[in-house]
């Protein structure tokens, strides 16, 4: 029984509809008015009219073009700042801060405006890598929906306050007599800000996170005496067991974790060892998709699963009934964890303090503390404790809170009982919001003080204890905004602004102005010098921590303090707590975060909204992820036994069935269904972060539905699942824009290559053999296709030749590369309706393939992610079909695209076997974005978001080195040629050779796992040459048998399982005998 690789259910079935789709890649005709049956003369635009228009427009164009040339001004500086040269980009070290998510970055500033985010190489734990959200954050700076001036509420409306002085006066008056002011923030890691808060008389600081880590914080407090999260080093773990933790996507700092994780996942020709990654989860998560083995269970079983694992390792805990597959998985996990003591780790995504207590006990038992989990450095990404916000609500209700200041937190949107919070808030007299947007909570406040975007701010962040990252402004504030710290300083009677305060703070800490400036220039400071002590355990004792007998503490002490001094006292209580867990109903719901949208704070960002989800490939919506059996039952879509027609109806039309999800009998939400293999059969999953108010912008407003209210509290912490939901078909359909279902490789195999580690070790030549066979068939003498088998002359590459290698073992599908490509290359946002028409413009996409047993598509063995971009073929099929030679090859191996030459025949895209060429169906970046032009009649209606992307403000994000394309032009990956040209020029100017690593593509720069390696393949010492040489056995070219001679190679995906997969001997004849469905 062989494995089947498939992208869509239709492809799995080999359906006729798919064949038709393939035959006609561009389903629409070009937008010319169709002739009716009466013939051309009687068409609404007959020949004579046509000639009239032609004549008129030619004459008009000639007159318009010839008579007057616009006079353009060139206005220089009045006083040129010494370090700014027009046209030269500068990079400033700063920090991406979105609530608790923190990444040290460099902002590329061109002519005074930040246009691109790159990672800060000086940072030791991110290695200069970024996430999709950090990459996209530069667009937030130019968001037209940001608050532009301070406001106060008069009646039900907000009214502008002209100056901050006036506002300060009003607030000072309001605050006098307001007892017990409370500052509600999301996780705050800035040491200087914390000092300011501490100095504010009587101010109580409450931290609240939409994605709470309260359970973990409390469990750690009970076991280690510190309410903190230790740091993890997945690079030291040979076995990783994740109990629903999405640590590669959204858990704490996925950039750091993914970087550590892949260190043991890269497999060169000499290697035969990889780390093992087992995932126990309820739905198909991005991290689960990367796991070697997955086991699914109901979300309410996450406690019993942890307990069972603990029992299997420590052998003395009560267990609960679980299904056999999960039991087998737990046994396997326990064996492997036990066998790798000191090099294994268990992480859990649960917010239940009991579950986390058990996980701590497991980690202690397997010796994870020390080598893998390090208590000497703690992570500050999440600090909010659920009890605090409950207490705040109680305090507000009792009327003891005189003033509430809100920064970062948005409980009116993302609290599980938002109405309760809102009602409590109404009882507070003075409510002040510091925010960039008029978000849900801000709308409930009396005063709104717009805050800076982080690219306009001064500041600091301490994501890990002792690791400081500085924020410096890269642009003058665009609007009338003010740092929220300045407000706090002012109102507490300190008249210095935050900038001065911050500088003084660090100059004192670092001893000198020079020390501070050096640190600021570097952006990061790795030392304990600035560290704030981990907050000591508050006096308030937690009931969980005090009971229970000591069970066992087997810790391998490696570094003093790094193990944290585990005290397993709470395990039995925790186990007891789990036994009390409610039994699930018929169906259960789990809430998750998408890697693109997260908790929804950056939902206003069109780049992130248009980034397809790694698993569902859907964008611009949230939806119900449903298992195949449940879909059959509830919405009547049978993807296993159904007829082809039936499957196609679901698969090939954006209209998806809508269901009503009801939780606890009253909280309902209506969302479309996407059927995903590998889900727990009784669980549905819905992403949070959608359904924002339209006051924050059209990108987020009214997109999807808010599901935060479907979560609940278990008494001590918040549960992001519901054990009992009823799901019913709503009897209607809803369009969901998915991006992968339209491109097809016409049944050509060899697109993805994947196998198990055991099979690979057994037959290491299995991938190489295919290449050798091809060489033997076509180039028997030299083995070189270029020399023997083609009539085209070989391109001469006298100097450089660019090449790229993509390691599918390292790619986690985080999407950072896709957004980086968007930002670097001015790739337009097309909006949901265009994506639904398959008009998405991504130059780089991440294809997702499910690997399943041929007969059971629900049994997902693996998910393979393949970043797919222009392969820059040396024998490119697109080049020789272009009638105007708009696409051709250059002397550095790049398949070039001259936009001004392109006449839009789209022959190239039709002839591209990789489907990476993108056609501008509308003038997304120009006139078609205007409201009256958006109805494109023959193409379809365009979304209003396109207009926002073309606002003068938003356009400031455009890269001036890259042409903005217009309608009717084909475009595609250029290997970031502007970056390569710049690197070459820098080398020429410095009179040196081009050093390896100087020329990078945006995708490579962003990739947290170094999956993408790019460079000059003629440089024998370059990383690309080394990577190709060291991974010869995994190396393959996509559909190499069509002899396109790509300059992009892939490294096959290897799963670390012991399964032996029969290697199919690739036979060229067989491939040919199975001809493409079309042509």
């Amino acid at each position, binding site marked *: 029984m062989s494995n089947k690789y498939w992208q869509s259910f239709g492809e799995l079935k080999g359906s006729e509809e798919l064949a038709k789709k393939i035959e006609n890649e561009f389903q629409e005709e070009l937008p010319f008015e169709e002739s009716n049956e009466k013939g051309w003369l009687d068409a609404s635009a007959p020949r004579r009219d046509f000639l009239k228009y032609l004549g008129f427009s030619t004459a008009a164009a000639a007159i318009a073009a010839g008579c007057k040339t616009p006079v353009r001004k060139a*206005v*220089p500086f009045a*006083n040129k700042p010494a370090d700014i040269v*027009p046209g030269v980009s500068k990079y400033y070290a700063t920090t991406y801060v979105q609530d608790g998510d923190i990444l040290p970055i460099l902002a590329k500033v061109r002519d005074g405006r930040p246009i691109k985010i790159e990672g800060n190489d000086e940072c030791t734990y991110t290695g200069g890598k970024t996430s999709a959200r950090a990459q996209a954050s530069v667009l937030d700076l130019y968001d037209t929906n940001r608050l532009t001036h301070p406001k106060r509420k008069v009646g039900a409306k907000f009214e502008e306050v002209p100056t901050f002085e006036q506002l300060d006066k009003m607030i000072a008056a309001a605050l006098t007599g307001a007892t017990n002011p409370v500052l509600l923030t999301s996780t705050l890691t800035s040491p200087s800000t914390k000092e300011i808060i501490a100095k504010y008389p009587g101010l109580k600081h409450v931290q609240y996170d939409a994605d709470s880590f309260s359970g973990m914080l409390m469990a750690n407090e009970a076991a280690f005496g510190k309410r903190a999260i230790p740091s993890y080093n997945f690079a030291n773990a040979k076995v990783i067991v994740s109990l629903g933790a999405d640590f590669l996507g959204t858990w704490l700092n996925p950039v750091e974790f993914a970087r550590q994780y892949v260190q043991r996942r890269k497999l060169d020709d000499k290697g035969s060892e990889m780390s093992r990654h087992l995932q126990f989860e309820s739905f198909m998560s991005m991290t689960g998709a990367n796991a070697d083995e997955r086991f699914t269970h109901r979300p309410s079983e996450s406690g019993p699963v942890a307990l069972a694992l603990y029992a299997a390792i420590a052998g003395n805990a009560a267990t609960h009934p679980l299904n056999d597959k999960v039991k087998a998985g737990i046994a396997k996990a326990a064996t492997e964890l036990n066998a790798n003591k000191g090099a294994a780790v268990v992480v859990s995504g649960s917010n239940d303090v009991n579950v986390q207590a058990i996980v701590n006990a497991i980690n202690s038992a397997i010796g994870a503390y020390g080598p893998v989990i390090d208590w000497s450095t703690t992570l500050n990404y999440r600090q909010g404790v659920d009890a605090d916000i409950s207490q705040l609500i109680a305090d507000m209700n009792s009327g003891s809170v005189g003033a509430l200041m809100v920064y970062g937190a948005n409980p009116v949107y993302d609290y599980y009982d938002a109405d309760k919070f809102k009602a409590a808030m109404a009882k507070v007299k003075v409510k002040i919001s510091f925010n960039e947007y008029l978000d849900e909570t801000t709308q409930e406040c009396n005063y709104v003080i717009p805050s800076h975007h982080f690219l306009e701010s001064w500041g600091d962040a301490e994501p890990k204890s002792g690791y400081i990252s500085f924020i410096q402004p890269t642009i003058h504030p665009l609007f009338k905004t003010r740092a929220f710290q300045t407000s706090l300083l002012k109102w507490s009677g300190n008249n210095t602004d935050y900038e001065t305060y911050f500088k003084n703070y660090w100059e004192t800490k670092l001893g000198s102005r020079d020390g501070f400036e050096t640190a600021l220039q570097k952006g990061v400071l790795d030392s304990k010098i600035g560290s704030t002590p981990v907050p000591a355990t508050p006096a308030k004792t937690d009931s969980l921590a005090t009971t229970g007998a000591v069970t066992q503490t087997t810790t391998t002490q490696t570094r003093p303090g790094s193990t944290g001094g585990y005290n397993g006292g709470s395990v039995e209580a925790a186990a007891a707590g789990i036994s009390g867990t409610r039994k699930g109903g018929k169906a259960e719901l789990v809430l998750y975060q998408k890697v693109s949208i997260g908790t929804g704070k950056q939902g206003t960002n069109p780049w992130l909204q248009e980034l397809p989800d790694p698993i569902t490939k859907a964008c611009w919506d949230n939806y119900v992820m449903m298992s195949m059996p449940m879909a059959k039952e509830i919405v009547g879509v049978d993807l296993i036994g159904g007829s082809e027609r039936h499957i196609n109806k679901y698969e090939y039309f954006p209209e998806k069935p809508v269901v009503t999800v009801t939780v606890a009998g009253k909280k309902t939400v209506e969302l479309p269904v996407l059927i995903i293999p590998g889900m727990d059969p009784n669980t549905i999953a819905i992403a949070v972060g959608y359904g924002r108010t339209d006051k924050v912008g059209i990108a987020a407003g009214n997109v999807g539905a808010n599901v935060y209210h479907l979560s609940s509290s278990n008494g001590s912490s918040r549960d992001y699942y519901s054990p009992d939901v009823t799901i019913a078909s709503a009897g209607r359909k809803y369009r969901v824009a998915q991006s992968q279902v339209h491109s097809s490789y016409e049944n050509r195999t060899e697109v993805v290559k994947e196998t198990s580690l055991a099979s690979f070790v057994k037959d290491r030549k299995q991938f190489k053999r295919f290449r050798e066979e091809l060489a033997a068939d076509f180039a028997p003498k030299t083995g070189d296709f270029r020399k023997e088998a083609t009539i085209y002359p070989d391109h001469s590459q006298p*100097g450089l030749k660019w090449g790229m290698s993509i390691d599918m073992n390292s790619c986690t599908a985080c999407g950072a590369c896709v957004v980086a490509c968007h930002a670097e290359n001015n790739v337009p946002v097309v909006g949901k309706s265009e994506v639904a028409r398959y008009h998405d413009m991504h130059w780089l996409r991440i294809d997702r393939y499910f690997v399943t047993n041929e007969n059971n598509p629900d049994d997902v063995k693996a998910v393979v992610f393949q970043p797919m971009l222009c392969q820059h073929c040396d024998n490119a099929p697109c080049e020789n079909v272009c009638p105007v030679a708009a696409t051709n090859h250059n002397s550095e191996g790049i398949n070039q*695209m001259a936009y001004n030459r392109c006449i839009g025949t789209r022959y190239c895209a039709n002839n591209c076997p990789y489907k990476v060429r993108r056609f501008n169906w509308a003038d997304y970046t120009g006139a078609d974005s205007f409201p009256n032009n958006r109805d494109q009649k023959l193409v379809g209606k365009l979304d209003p978001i396109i207009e926002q992307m073309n606002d003068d403000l938003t356009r400031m994000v455009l890269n001036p080195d890259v042409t903005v394309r217009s309608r009717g032009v084909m475009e595609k990956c250029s290997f970031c040629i502007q970056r390569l040209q710049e690197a070459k020029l820098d080398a020429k100017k410095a009179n*040196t050779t081009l050093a390896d690593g100087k020329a990078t593509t945006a995708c490579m720069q962003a990739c947290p796992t170094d999956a993408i390696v790019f460079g000059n393949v003629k440089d024998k010492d370059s990383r690309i040459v080394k990577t190709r040489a060291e991974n010869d056995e995994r190396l393959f070219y996509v559909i190499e048998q069509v002899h396109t001679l790509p300059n992009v190679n892939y490294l096959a995906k290897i799963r670390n399982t012991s399964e032996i997969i029969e290697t199919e001997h690739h036979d060229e004849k067989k491939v040919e005998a199975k001809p493409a469905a079309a042509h």
Partner: protein
Amino acid sequence: MAGYEILSTFFRSTVSMIPEKSFAPKRLLLLTAFFVFSFINIDAQDGKALFIAKCASCHIMGGTSTGPDLQGVVERWGGDEVRVKQWILNYDKLVKSGDSKAAEVANSSPNVMQIFEGQLSPADLDALVKYINEWKPAVAATTTGPTQQDDSGRGGLIFGVISLIMAIIALILMQVNSNLKKLSDDAEGILRPDPVPFYKNKVYIALFSILLFIVGGYYTASALIDFGRQKDYQPEQPIYYSHKVHAGTNQISCLYCHGAAMESKHAAIPSVNVCMNCHKTITSYSETSPKIYKDDGTEVNGTREIEKLYSYAGFDPKNPLAWDPAKAKPIPWTKIHNLPDHVYFNHSQHIKAGNVQCQTCHGEITNMDEVYQFSELSMGWCVNCHRDTKVDFYKIDTSGRAKGNKFYSIYEKFHNDIKSGRMDSVTVKDIGGLECQKCHY
């Protein structure tokens, strides 16, 4: 008039499409002989170059600028070169050491001099002082710029006129022939139908139409190609800024004002504070200097133009110490050289990496009062230059000394070809300078 315009542009475009092999170097030679721009490699021993690079922004020889006249400066210091050199390196130190001459010079002007310590080697100083000592006022150079007449154009015109005359003669002869035939037919009594006059002859009409179509089409197409091109564009600027006075007469290096050309894609127009570096002290256009005339013959009052600068800068020459540069307003110059948005052009690529002289594209700027667009800035014009221009290819000569830009050391194939004699030099075209995505991306 319009007809003339089209005709002249036609000839120009045909000329520029012809590789300018013999023409270009000659022109360059003329230009470089006329005025040396020495920003590419400042040789330590080249006093003049050093002077232009370091001193000329504030000092001129034979006149007072921001700084005092340097002619005979060593004599004024009593022939003490050592102290002059000390002054150049760090005047402040010399003043503080109690030197009375130094104090006197320092007090003579409100302007302060830059500190050059660490920027000039002893050899540089020697060369610089030598240059200053040996400087003599130049005999007014006779400007012999390149003639804009192009022989090939005139040849084409002559050829056209001759063709036209021949055609008319042929026509007359044909007419004569038919008349003679008629006469002879009449004489022989052969009755023939009356000959059709030539203007009614269908063959003639058809031939004429075809000719008209071809010629007319050619000129129409050529004219259309020129749409949007602005060769000779010379807009009026907010200030009558004469490049001839600054770069020509006063020999200020191009890069003093357009320094960004060395590092950026833009050459950049200088900001007001750069103008004011010199014009804080140069408050009027010297009476003795040659008068400036506009194209239409009206005289330009240089002093009034400087006053315009002051109004932008917010500077009062009567009260120079009260000037606040922060209050200056930028000058809205009119952009002359406009490239389409889909073209990427980088000045530093050409100036720094390519060692191209400014004048190659911008023409003889030193002779232009108001600047006009000298070159076509069309793709054909770019490409023609890329075809012929040699890159600074890396070579190791027979004595083992390396020459040229090290970047090109990786071009193995070319090195082998040069060694084997198959190639004598490497042009921009050879390294991919004609490829689409070298300029369009």
